[in-house]
């Protein structure tokens, strides 16, 4: 691991958070635009242990709940579950392929929305269907695309150098 990795990783996380509060509202509808906060959490879970990922998810979810108090707690629970199981799945499946990570971002977004919808119980059945079958997949798709782009663009920052990395097929 390079000494500068200590700074590069938080820079990317901070950039995603800033993008969430600045650019996101100009990237189309609120239900379709990529979720940079969730993306930051999912990228974090790639490297972090499941417990830390769950805690990070809880913090992010609680802060988001503070912005939308109508479903207070639902976001915290959803992000906790997504953070924990994303990190756990990463450890189990050991997936380094970019497509698998894109699928992880897509599934993480969709499952987060599913949990929030189920736990908050604010929407009617037809609205839930629209959310889960139309809007959530679209948001998951945009989030996955942005996530893959971020991983590709910052591949030198997000994938730390390790001895023998080239032989393992991990991008250096």
């Amino acid at each position, binding site marked *: 691991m390079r000494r500068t990795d200590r700074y590069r990783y938080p820079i990317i996380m901070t950039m995603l958070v800033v993008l969430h509060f600045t650019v996101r509202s100009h990237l189309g509808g609120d239900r379709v635009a990529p979720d940079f906060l969730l993306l930051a959490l999912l990228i974090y879970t790639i490297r972090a242990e*499941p417990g830390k990922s769950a805690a990070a998810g809880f913090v992010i979810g609680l802060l988001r709940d503070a*912005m939308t108090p109508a479903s*207070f*707690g639902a976001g*915290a*629970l959803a992000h906790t579950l997504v953070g924990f199981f994303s990190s756990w799945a990463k450890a189990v499946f*050991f997936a380094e392929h970019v497509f698998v990570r894109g699928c992880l971002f897509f599934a993480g977004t969709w499952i987060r929305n599913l949990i929030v919808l189920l736990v908050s119980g604010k929407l009617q059945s037809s609205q839930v269907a629209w959310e889960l079958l139309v809007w959530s997949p679209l948001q998951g798709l945009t989030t996955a695309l942005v996530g893959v782009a971020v991983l590709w663009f910052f591949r030198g920052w997000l994938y*730390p150098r390790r001895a023998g990395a080239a032989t393992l097929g991990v991008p250096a």
Partner: protein
Amino acid sequence: MAIRTDRYASRADTLLFVACVGLSIAALSLPPQWRDQLAQGLQQSVLAPFIFLQRQTELLAAARTNYDNVVAQRDSAALAAAFLPELRNENARLRGLLGLSARLGSGYVSAEILHQPEPTNPLSFVVSAGRHEGVRPLSAVVSPEGLVGLVASVGEHSSVVLSWAHPEFRASAIAQDGSVVGIAAPHGAEGPNVWLLELQGVLYRQQVLPGTVIVTSGLGGVFPRGVPIGVVVGPAGEEKGWGRTYLVRPAVHPAELSHVMILTSPRPAGADLRNAFTTPQDSAGTGQVPRE
């Protein structure tokens, strides 16, 4: 940060996860009052810079949108301002027509000129009044400034007007004070003075000073007396024969008109319309006709 690609959830991870889930459920079950207070506290502390950032971004986007709107409004205003002099001119002309109609009394028809993009449009043009409106062939066509031409042919609801610039146009003319008589005709279709009239057939012994106002004489019965034709500019060239020819700046240019009035009924003998029209400019020497 430790890199552990072969990790699974340890007991500490599981405990942390369970704790987070428990806290989330606790947050879900908070009473609305506590929930709102907690949310408000987070908004005013941890989230404050992010909310500020988002608000500034929205303000910036709104400012950009407003800027675009302001630019669009400015462009529209500039475009409208570009047409303003033309609108003012047309307004003044219409007011002039109204004034002329009041002075003429009756026996006229207002008509709109149906301009065409051809270059010969000033020579002859179509107006939106015809037989149905009482227009007859050879009716005089005037504007508040003076003589425009005469009706050449009449349709049911439209007429063809020969303007004074048409090569076949002729009008019996006289100086405003009645001292000089001649024939007004177009100067020609070539050269720099193409849009001028000539006052032909002036007696050789008479000289007309520049600025003399020329009006119709009423002879011949086509045009009533006193309709301004133009203002004398100067001699047309070297005199030939027994008459003199003078250049006359016309009172009206047909291409600038949008509406005209067609005099439909014959005026009584001796009727003079001089007072109905505005006096042409450059009439400094009006009526001063030295005799040799």
